[in-house]
């Protein structure tokens, strides 16, 4: 069965491009455009991995990550935070809230795919 990935980002273009790449690799991809919808979808679909944007309206990726990782029902979902800020402080906070990975935009496609495969396999 295909592994499920949820992409949460407020940038349509980024969702479109990442989704296109992951679908071609055989993943089942769903999308959300803000942190709140992301949480709802994560609870509904229980994906294997979430690609979560750091800065979003409604609920930031950081908060969404903290909420999911502190809930025993969903803590097993792997979370990779995507950020366009690239600050050591943000990396530290990402670790603190229990993120399994951290990727800085603009990312190397190979790095993103390698991280996904490392966490949930092909």
């Amino acid at each position, binding site marked *: 069965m295909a592994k499920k990935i949820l992409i949460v980002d407020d*940038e349509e273009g980024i969702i479109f491009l990442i989704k*296109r790449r992951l679908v071609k690799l055989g993943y089942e991809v769903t999308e959300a455009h803000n942190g709140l919808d992301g949480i709802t979808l994560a609870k509904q679909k229980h994906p294997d991995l979430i690609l979560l944007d750091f800065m979003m309206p409604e609920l930031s990726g950081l908060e969404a990550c903290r909420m999911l990782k502190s809930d025993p029902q969903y803590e097993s979902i792997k979370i990779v935070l995507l950020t366009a800020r690239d600050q050591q402080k943000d990396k530290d906070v990402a670790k603190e809230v229990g993120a399994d990975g951290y990727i800085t935009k*603009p990312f190397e496609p190979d790095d993103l795919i390698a991280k996904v495969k490392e966490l949930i396999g092909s």
Partner: protein
Amino acid sequence: VGKTVETYIVDKKKRMITDSRFIKNAILKIQVETPGTDACFSKKAAPVLYKNYQGGLVLGTQQYLPDQQWCILTEIDVREAFQPASAFRTQIIFLLIILAFFIVFFVKSAGKKFIAPITMLRDAALKVARGSYDVQVANSSQDEIGELSVTFNQMTKILASTTTQLREKNKLLQAQKEELKKFDQLKSEFVSTVSHELRTPMTIIKESIAQLLEEENMPRPEKNLLLNMAINNINRLANLINNLLDLSKIEAGKVELHKQKFNLVNLIQEVCKGFELPARQKGIDIRWKASAEAIEVFADPDKLTQVFLNLVGNSMKFVQKGYIEISALSENNHIKCIVADTGPGIGKDDLQKVFNKFQQFGHQASGGVKGTGLGLSICKGLIDLHGGDIWVESEAGEGTRFIFTLPNGQ
């Protein structure tokens, strides 16, 4: 002569040959063997005090009469002789007691007079040491302690005012420090946000081109989609950079206005024309109205166009149905322009933040179209430069009205 004074004569056999004042028929009957007679006959110095022939202690003087070989003695009872001295002693003792009373009283009252102010000064000094500088000691005397009190009061006054000044300076410094800290925080937030805003379109450009390169046999429509995405985001990046440069120029005071007299109504018509096509495509109405056929303003037309483009462009993003209306009114001493729309409006909490840099609201409602978050900051900067005011009136669900004024005349 005193009561006990007696002068008598004794012959060489020391028999009294005169009458005694105290013993009757004493002539030749009383043998006077006293240190007085002994000394008189032996011609030696007699003691001043000795016991007389009656055994009483007397004060006496003797004179030897060599022709008769008699001795004449005058004696007085020592108590009578010293009676004035003793009375004097009693008086002295009495005086001493009174003096002692006076001394005790004086010391007590002097204590009150000298020690009380010193105690007050000590208490006041302790209060000052504990930090209350509004202490003043009562000045009751003209002496050194009084002077000390005056000096002390002057010192506390100076201390109080110096401390107040220091505290105020400290407060000011603290506030400046907080301000700097806030500024520093804002600066680092700004850098972080600019980084985010630049990296996001860069990510889309990079990823779309990467995918185009990876897939040689990509169908034409998909290719076009990715290329358009890349171009749109290159434009977005260019736009962002232009806006950032504009804003930094405005903030650094490096924007020069090229003011001239022109008809504002013409400018508004031009702006509307520019938006007609995208408005028609979106199915919304774009219209204008003015209080007169010609409203003359003295302003920089390019900068004013930029303000209208930003405001109307903003509305275009959010209005889904309805209209965008630009109006211009000539009022008493200024010209008022309004850009009103039937968009989703802005919530109360966000209303104050709309002119802040990188504040973007409700781009969900705008269909995911993201601006740079700098357009309104630039509008505010440009209107400020013209000496006008800009503000926003809105309520969630009730549309938005951006209003700005320009001063009349030159």
